[in-house]
């Protein structure tokens, strides 16, 4: 026994020493003070190969888990756009070959799959995502490998990255128009209800700042985790606070629980209407309750009368596995692939730096179903029309308000004096 335990001890010690030595030898990478490395230039060079007759692109959405119900639509419409572009001759004459990955509603999985798409599959660009959490997981990875990510969903703004293009609305294209609409409706008392994660928290911080300027009183603010459906006690607080309107930033299936609690408590669209920023044509019929008369703020609605919208709706209805209705996030995803095509053709190359340079040099446009959108090459967002829709009995939206022109993207709200400059500076510094 004693000889064995002695041998054991020496072996364990040897193992530990061996490990330490291996670590010290390996620790020859860049240190924090190393200026050359701090710029991120030490990352391996891109392995993207576009010399053949095809270009590889990555599609990344949650096909499983809680967000699958929303994200599968985005994934499907990306397939449709790829098929359309391939039928029209591809990008720079190269057919799109896509690699589909599942983010599984798990943010670390989004990070892992992004790394796989960029370094194993060597895709030229990645399209997809839905929740802001998934985008925040993808961001450091695309920045590290100098890849490209096209994000198609409206979000909370206050972000920009040389490696991300945002084709959904930023706050000044969705939240601020919604607030302007509420002001015009004579709303005095507003209640904020949201899911407990980055988008609703940030959106509401901005709403509170703007409400103070507009003279709208915020009479309450409640959050419920994304995966929880019980809104009973929060809705009781809404009833007690007697707001004129409810601003809803709840995402996903939690909306069903909210809508149920809302009608159970006796609230009605006629007296205490809801304005939502994540209930679209696809979600409205899935609420488990008639939601006629409630409002939503989006840039695209299926009911929009634009020259390109009828063809888009028709193609989507004919597409396999289609839900039959079109909505804002899927339209933004559709835009993202065409925008990439336009960018690459302007650059004459799939190279990330060349694409970014082309975005700065040219005014890239696309005749989207929501209208002719223009890319801002500096902040990587696109111009969009603002629309407020009111849900009718067939779960489509009647347009009740439209911005008089396309709204230029302003993710850091630089054109809005009520947004404190010192906070903006802190955010920009933290991002840099």
């Amino acid at each position, binding site marked *: 026994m004693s000889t*064995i*335990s002695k041998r*054991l001890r020496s072996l*364990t010690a040897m*193992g*530990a020493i*061996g*490990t*330490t030595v291996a*670590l010290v030898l*390996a*620790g020859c*990478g*860049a*240190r*924090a003070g*190393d200026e050359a*490395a701090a710029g*991120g230039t*030490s*990352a*391996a060079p891109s392995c993207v190969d576009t010399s053949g007759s095809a270009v590889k692109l990555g599609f990344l959405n949650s*096909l*499983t888990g809680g967000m699958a119900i929303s994200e599968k639509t985005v994934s499907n419409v990306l397939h449709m756009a790829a098929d359309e572009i391939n039928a029209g001759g591809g990008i720079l004459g190269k057919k799109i070959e896509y690699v589909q*990955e*599942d983010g*599984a509603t798990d*943010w*670390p*999985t989004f*990070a*892992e799959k992004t*790394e*796989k798409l960029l*370094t*194993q599959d060597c895709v030229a660009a990645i399209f997809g995502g839905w929740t*802001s*959490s998934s985008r*925040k*997981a993808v*961001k*450091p990875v695309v920045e590290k490998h100098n890849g490209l990510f096209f994000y198609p969903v409206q979000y909370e703004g*206050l972000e920009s990255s040389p490696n991300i293009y945002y084709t959904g609305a930023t706050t000044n294209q969705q939240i601020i128009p919604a607030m302007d609409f509420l002001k015009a409706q004579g709303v005095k008392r507003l209640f904020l209800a949201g899911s*407990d*994660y*980055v988008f609703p*928290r*940030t959106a509401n*911080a901005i709403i509170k700042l703007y409400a103070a300027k507009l003279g709208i009183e915020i009479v309450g603010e409640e*959050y419920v*985790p*994304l995966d929880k459906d019980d809104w009973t006690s929060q809705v009781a607080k809404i009833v007690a606070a007697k707001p004129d309107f409810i601003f809803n930033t709840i995402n996903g299936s939690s909306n069903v629980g909210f809508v149920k609690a809302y009608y159970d408590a006796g609230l009605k669209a006629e007296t205490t209407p809801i304005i939502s920023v994540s209930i679209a044509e696809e979600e409205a019929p899935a609420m488990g309750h008639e939601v006629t008369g409630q409002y939503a703020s989006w840039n695209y609605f299926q009911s929009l009368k634009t020259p390109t919208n009828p063809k888009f709706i028709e193609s989507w209805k004919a597409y396999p596995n289609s839900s039959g209705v079109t909505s804002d996030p899927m339209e933004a995803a559709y835009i993202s692939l065409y925008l990439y095509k336009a960018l690459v053709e302007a650059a004459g190359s799939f190279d990330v730096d060349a694409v970014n340079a082309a975005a700065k040099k040219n005014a890239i446009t696309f005749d989207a179903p929501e209208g002719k959108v223009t890319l801002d090459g500096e902040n990587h967002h696109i111009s969009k029309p603002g629309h407020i829709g009111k849900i009718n009995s067939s779960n489509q939206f009647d347009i009740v308000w439209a911005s008089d022109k396309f709204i230029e993207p302003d993710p850091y709200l630089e054109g809005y004096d009520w947004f*404190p400059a*010192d*906070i903006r500076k*802190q*955010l920009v*510094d*933290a*991002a840099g």
Partner: protein
Amino acid sequence: MTKPRTTGPKPWISLSGIGVFAVLLLAVAPLVLTDHWLNNLGKYCCWAIAAVGIGLAWGRGGMLVMGQGVFFALGAYSMAMHLTLETAGDRIPGFMVLYDPLAPLPMFWEPFRSAGFTLLAIVLLPVVMAGILGYALFKRRVKGAYFAILTQALAVALATLISSTIRETGGDTGLSDFKYFFGFVLNDPANKVMVFLIAAGLLIVCLLAVWQLYRSRFGELLVATRDAEERVRFLGYDPANVKLVAFVVSALMASIAGAMFVPIVGIITPAEIGAAASILMIAGVAFGGRASLFGPALGAMAVGWGQSSLGSTWPEGWTYILGLLFIVVILFLPNGLSSLPSRFPGRTRPKPDVPPTPAIAAAELEEVRA
């Protein structure tokens, strides 16, 4: 010392097994794997470290620890807070500015600026917490399903707490975007290899540690406590102390696993520590063979690999495959895949008709006596 009538593998077999494993992980893997798969392997190593601890507590000690996510979180969030502060410098981390631009850094973040405090917290927090929890539970003789449910409930509670304190902990979105690791630039591929080697090295150290524990008098007592707690008590030992040590060691391993998970994966969220994640850790251990030396680690790595590769090729089907495998293993191979060799006829360990758990226990007692 007489030649023992051993039914288990001889000590040099286990040791050389660890040796081969060490060579494969520390020398071969960095040479043959791409950066992406090396990073993935590093992640599986983290799960394997936690699994080795579960093997000790559950496989040998009979305590079904269904909430290892709690201790995984202590290590992971300690590390993540330090790396977040290291990246932010003297500024307040970006996500906090986003939610409440004017509030200062929460008090409990301050000490994590210090690298020394962080390393100490990764070791001491789980030890203290598991110590208090284990003492309270084992002295009151809480065991079996009650113990399992209690630990599971803790994991759920902690995940919910983190989700609902978005400004303090990053909430559901988690903590991510780490630029530095104790002064090293994380984006540098050479440093990624270093981080992998630390994780793999820690896994080897953990394997050596439990190998030694299993062969010690303590290991003998632990198995005895698992199989006949009352008898151990009659013999004059306090089973609560034996279980407490195993529980604390397993908590420490889970915390180390969590701490290494953060620089390797680059993000930590409550989903990685909650009920589902804790159960997935158990699944790997059961799959590989909870009472064996290598079973838990290899099982955890296999489940991790399945998630990465099958989850890519067949996202909708992979969880069904995992579930099916789990059922098959529980029904037909209660001691996991590592008990497969002993089931082949003609080997030196013929005992397919003996009830599995006592058989293993007996075999291990024999081995320990060597």
